[in-house]
């Protein structure tokens, strides 16, 4: 099994995958507790729109994915705070709008080929050294901010109004959290793919919640589940030449079902 690490691209894929597993699961805990699960789905499609623009304009699609996901995150928060418009409908509209625009842009630009496919479902072959640097740098910043404000995010997730009246800057932190999530999703798009990343964010936490333990333990369990899924998913992807995002998500699902069975009462 270890011979797969003889390939440079596999080493890169694993480094990227491990960083993403850490980021997705830790941010995912807050996303789930905050009931933001659908936002992840929407942002991943906005990131895909960014990829499409990057592919056609021929610059690193990772950068444009980050920009577009951030923009979408801010738009969602703006709509929510300015018009109290925060419904599934708004998110669904943004999601399908982004996806449709991405497809149109790519076909007009003549780039409708395998490379878009790899951004939809993830590909371990595609991770370049440049990507690793981008993922590591943005990933480190995101993780730092998540940990720095984890107590505040936790309080807000539990009771936003009491958090606010106790002096926590709820509006700022909400914006910060969706921005971090947007960045993490955009970073993950290469390895896991835009259609599947929100599954890697959400499902490890939902599985961890089945254990009914305190906050710290929940985060740790979800982290372990994400790491295990990414590791086994990428291994399967390598040996059977399957898209890595899809194998990773199936591994996550398998562990989720396992945790349901273990914790059945």
């Amino acid at each position, binding site marked *: 099994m270890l011979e797969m690490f003889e390939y440079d691209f596999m080493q890169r894929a694993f480094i990227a995958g491990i960083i993403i597993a850490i980021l997705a699961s830790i941010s995912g805990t807050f996303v789930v507790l905050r009931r933001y699960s659908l936002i992840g789905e929407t942002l991943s499609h906005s990131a895909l729109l960014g990829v499409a623009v990057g592919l056609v304009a021929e610059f690193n699609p990772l950068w444009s994915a980050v920009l577009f996901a951030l923009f979408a995150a801010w738009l969602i928060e703006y709509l929510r705070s300015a018009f109290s418009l925060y419904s599934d409908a708004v998110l669904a509209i943004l999601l399908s709008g982004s996806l449709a625009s991405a497809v149109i842009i790519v076909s007009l630009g003549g780039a409708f080929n395998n490379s878009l496919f790899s951004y939809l479902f993830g590909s371990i072959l595609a991770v370049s050294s440049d990507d690793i640097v981008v993922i590591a740098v943005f990933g480190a910043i995101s993780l730092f901010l998540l940990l720095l404000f984890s107590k*505040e995010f936790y*309080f807000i997730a539990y009771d936003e*109004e009491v958090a*606010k*009246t106790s002096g926590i800057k709820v509006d700022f932190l909400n914006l910060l959290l969706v921005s971090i999530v947007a960045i993490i999703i955009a970073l993950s798009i290469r390895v896991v793919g835009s259609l599947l990343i929100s599954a890697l964010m959400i499902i490890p936490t939902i599985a*961890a919640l089945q254990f009914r333990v305190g906050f710290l333990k*929940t985060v740790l369990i979800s982290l372990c589940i994400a790491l295990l899924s990414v590791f086994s998913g990428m291994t399967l992807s390598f040996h059977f030449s399957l898209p890595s995002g899809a194998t990773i998500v199936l591994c996550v699902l398998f562990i989720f079902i396992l945790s349901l069975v273990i914790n059945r009462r």
Partner: protein
Amino acid sequence: MKFSVPIFDVKNLSFVLKEQTILSNISFEIFPSEYIAIIGPNGGGKTTLVRMLLGLEKPTNGEVKIYGKGLSHFNEWYKIGYVPQRASLVDGSFPATVLDIVNMGRTSQRRLFSTLSKSDRTFVHDAMQKMDILDLADKMVGTLSGGQRQRVMIARALASNPKILILDEPNTGVDAASQKNFYALLRELNKKDGITIVFITHDIGVIADDIARLFTINQKAIICNNPKQTLSCEEMSSLYGIDAHLLHNHRHEH
């Protein structure tokens, strides 16, 4: 008392929701170390009023000042402990132990990068002791009974070591013995530590001796500056459909 700066200064406050007047033209001041009880019928607007005091609801008209400042300029929120009415209605699967929840009471006063200090832990411990939930510390909140959960929420508010406690029917579902302890605790916090208390309750008779003033809220506010003279309060309250006999009867039992 009139010479000190009021903690809350409310002027001509109104709240209209979809053309329905919930609160109209309410004015009052609340001074440091006062113990205010708010009563009124269901739907009378008590919760709405308190939410406007805390900036959670925007008044249609009028203004709330807190320590002489507009709400958006106020930056000492850590002085306020708030227990909302729906406090016990939380998602049962939320991954939190009782200790996790009470620790939240310290969150807004922590410095960046720092974890709970020794004094933080002392505040948390004392608050849990006061609410008699020390033995529940490691239980998941989702597994608690309604009354136990309510006590956890009160403990969280106490853990922040507030100067002002705002309680919206915090002890619904709490058993009689614990309620009695809770009223005694509020009296002590108010008399001994000088904490300002704003307490929405339907259980006015029991605390009538402790409170400084009584606000009756039913769209309009009636302020009873001397609730010990129950008769006049009673008359005014009954105008608005409040059963102030409760107040009267309880007084004579004591």
